[in-house]
């Protein structure tokens, strides 16, 4: 402690105001806990500022332009012009509205907001360095702490995000022009979302992926629908190649790749977007001073209440090991941690975590695949409904993809679902609910679904698994 520095105290200190941290802080304050929330950058974290929200804003704009320009089949003829700078401003407006909302909500719930970077002094105190020279620092003592510092993009050798032609996903979302040629390193979900977005905005996109398909972790028939659409959009995909470097050329840059066999390839570009994943931010807080230790990848281990090895310090969101880096997981974990600190009998025991990918078409998944179910000892039964058999899908002019429901044959319990197709990100919620409630195929099939909607496909898939489908041939 420096001279004249008087430590302030708080019952709960939350480090990081992303979807894990701000949610935890608000819930804790609602429970009557004196809560302080520290944020070094922007309220809402990566999700609101540099991830989910701006990317979805950009995707919406790109989709709209692309749809309008490609609707001749419906008799609509247009040649849309995208003002990228204006689109970015609109996106920023959306982000500002949301981040402002988070700040207001925190204040309205009585959360004390502190700007700065927190470092642990010991297991009951942090030192907050306020941003900017001469802004000083302060010590805050706490009874409980929730670490919600999130993650940062991974940089790979040969590609420095400080270099102007090298984009992180965050840079891509800030772009005020569309590059003519874009090389995307990584065919994961961020790579594919941005590839399709920039392709729709007019860029020539090349995707370079080390593995042999896009979207690793998703079943091949799900990935295939997205890959085919990407190909239709003119995206050039190369598999089994790892990006090794880039160099300036007279006309833009040249991105080099290597195969396992040592074969080299080169791709001309104006920008190269590196999207190979994210790593947890646990190296900026002196966690060792609090008695904590991250694993060799930087993750913190927690129990089902989200307590770390130091019992009064919790961790939520992307810093937690063995859970997917998803905003909704972080929020749920934040609520569990806050309520547990408030003495409530909570636990992070969700039966299935839904995930959505905003590619074209979208992907929504939850719970087990057929293979997962088999591995877990169930006898899976699967029902599927192609969107091309859905009246509503056909009227949206997007009928690629399907809804698949996986259930236990003996009991009928819904175990998982994979949806690829229009509005898959929304449709998956119904099946997440079904799994969480312990619903059976019959429950889903017997629930009247509105006609004509895409959601009918969920009902039909369940009926298909029961051998009772009307609009598809039963398997």
């Amino acid at each position, binding site marked *: 402690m420096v001279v004249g520095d008087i430590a302030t105290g708080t019952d709960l200190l939350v480090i990081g105001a992303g979807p894990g941290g701000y949610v935890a802080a608000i819930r804790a304050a609602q429970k009557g806990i004196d809560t302080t929330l520290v944020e070094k950058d922007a309220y809402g974290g990566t999700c609101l500022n540099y991830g989910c929200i701006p990317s979805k804003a950009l995707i919406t704009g790109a989709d709209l332009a692309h749809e309008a320009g490609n609707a001749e089949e419906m008799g609509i003829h247009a040649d849309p012009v995208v003002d990228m700078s204006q689109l970015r401003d609109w996106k920023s407006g959306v982000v500002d509205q949301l981040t402002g909302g988070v700040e207001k909500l925190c204040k309205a719930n009585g959360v004390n907001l502190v700007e700065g970077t927190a470092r642990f002094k010991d297991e009951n105190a942090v030192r907050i360095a306020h941003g900017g020279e001469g802004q000083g620092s302060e010590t805050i003592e706490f009874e409980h702490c929730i670490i919600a510092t999130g993650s940062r993009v991974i940089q790979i050798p040969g590609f420095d995000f400080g270099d102007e032609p090298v984009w992180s996903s965050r840079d891509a979302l800030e772009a005020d022009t569309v590059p003519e040629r874009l090389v995307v390193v990584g065919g994961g979900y961020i790579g594919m979302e941005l590839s399709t977005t920039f392709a729709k905005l007019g860029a020539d996109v090349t995707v370079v992926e080390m593995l042999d398909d896009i979207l690793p972790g998703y079943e091949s028939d799900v990935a295939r629908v997205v890959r085919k659409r990407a190909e239709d959009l003119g995206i050039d995909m190369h598999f089994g190649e790892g990006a090794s470097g880039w160099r300036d050329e007279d006309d833009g840059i040249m991105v080099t790749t290597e195969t396992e066999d040592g074969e080299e390839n080169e791709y001309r570009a104006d920008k190269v977007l590196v999207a190979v994943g994210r790593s947890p931010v646990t190296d900026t807080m002196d966690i060792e001073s609090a008695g904590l230790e991250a694993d060799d990848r930087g993750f913190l281990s927690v129990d089902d*209440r989200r307590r770390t090895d130091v019992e009064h310090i919790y961790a939520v969101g992307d810093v937690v090991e063995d859970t997917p880096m998803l905003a909704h997981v972080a929020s749920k974990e934040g609520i569990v941690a806050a309520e547990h600190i408030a003495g409530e009998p909570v636990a992070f025991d969700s039966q299935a975590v839904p995930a959505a990918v905003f590619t074209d078409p979208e992907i929504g998944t939850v719970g087990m695949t057929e293979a*997962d179910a088999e591995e877990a000892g169930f006898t899976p039964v699967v029902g599927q409904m192609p969107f091309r058999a859905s009246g509503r899908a056909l009227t949206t002019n997007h009928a690629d993809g399907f809804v698949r429901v996986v259930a236990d044959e003996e009991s009928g319990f819904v175990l998982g679902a994979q949806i690829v197709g229009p509005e898959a990100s929304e449709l998956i919620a119904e099946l997440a609910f079904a799994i969480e409630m312990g619903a059976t195929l019959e429950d889903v099939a017997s629930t009247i679904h509105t006609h004509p909607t895409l959601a009918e496909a969920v009902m039909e898939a369940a009926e298909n698994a029961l051998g009772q489908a009307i609009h598809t041939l039963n398997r």
Partner: protein
Amino acid sequence: MALKEFKLPDVGEGVAEGELVTWHVAPGDEVTEDQVLAEVETDKALVDVPSPFNGTVKELLAEEGEVVPVGNVIITIQEDGDDEEAAETADADAEETADSDDAQASDTGGESDEDSGSGGRVFAPPSVRRLARELGVDLESVDGSGPSGRVTEGDVRAAAEDDGSEDEPSGPRSVQSNGKSATAKRDEGTSASASAAASAESADREQTLAAPATRALAKEEGVDLNAVPATEMRDGEAFVSPEAVQEYAQAQREAQAADAEAVSAEADAGTATAEATGEPEAAESAETGPGAGERVPYKGVRKAIGDQMQRSKYTAPHVTHHDEVDVTELVELRERLKPVAEERGSRLTYMPFVMKAVIAALKDFPYLNSQLDEENEEIVLRDEYNIGVAAATDAGLLVPVVHDADRKGMLELADEMNEKVEKARNRKISPGEMRGGTFTITNIGGIGGEYATPIINYPEVAILALGAIKDKPRVIDGEVVPRKVLTLSLSFDHRIVDGAQGARFTNRVKELLEDPKLLVLE
């Protein structure tokens, strides 16, 4: 820092409920293990209920004066420390493959680890999962009664109740197990009747499952489905059949008809007034019916006594034998011994003499010191002499027991009895000190009166009531002289003891009290 629940323990053997008399803690209070949380009145005694944990009181779930069934959660305590839960931390899964794969795998936002769990998964909605945590129920150990074995709220609550009855973590300090088989039988009987009463009351439910046609029938019959006794349980909820609705409706109609008859009889009695004033008859009966006047809850000690008396009176056919005994010599003896006893710090009343006489008589007539084991159809002749002494207290009649009274001297009996009666009057006596009696003596004389029909302290076989010692004329050697006379009223269970034996027993007691010197030989 787990939230622990504390259920009302069985503070006396077989007790089904207790009145929460006083809370000694409030939410926010720090409590330590064994600290008294509350005072609970059951089975004729006030019992301190100690905390089984260290922690902070979170919530009180019963109000003072509330009658709480054993096994109901009465308080939640935020426990200090929680090693058990910290141990729940899952082991880290095996490392993933290559580093670059790691990066991309996390990038995909792929399936969660939960998804690849075991086939032994439990299907239960989030609300049920939370309830299980609240009630400390391990979901994996619950058999689901829902579709395909889904665990329902009712299943979790039932599991919680089962757990509570089987291994309650802590009990009251003052209760001791008696261990006598006959007593155990009695306790089983008590709990059986208590649970029967509970199921009768449960007809007033909040939720009832029934088929739509049954609901329509109930509506037609004007019957509240929640009041109809359930025919079965489904999904942990009460299910009512159409037959049950009809049966209940019929019973209701009959009851109403009986009421109407009673009302019209009352109305007939008051016809003159009603007709004269022209007021409706119903108004008249409401004024004079059982609804008028103060209503005092029938609960706690009063109800315990009532239940016990009712059970005794309607189980054991009572016969009461009356007699008088000339205790002039006993009065003189006691007068002489009283100061001696006082010198030794004891207060000598007539009761120890009576106890000595009774024990001697019981030894001669062992059936008076027995119990009927109804289930096995055996009369158990007790080989111990535990004499209960009824004591009138502000709360009601309590019966402290002097155990092994046959092995105790006169002053020892006096001291122990006085101490226990005092404790009963102060409501500090434990259930164990009132249990295990083989014969009871009650003294009505202190208040007045001569004869009574005492009700046997079931499952004992007999009870002796003492009247007041009064000067009464007696003919001795042809002359009428005043003598000290004590009345005796012996009630006995005619299933075990016949009139002749009762009279002979009384004669033996009389003999010893008339000539107390004989007690020296006993």
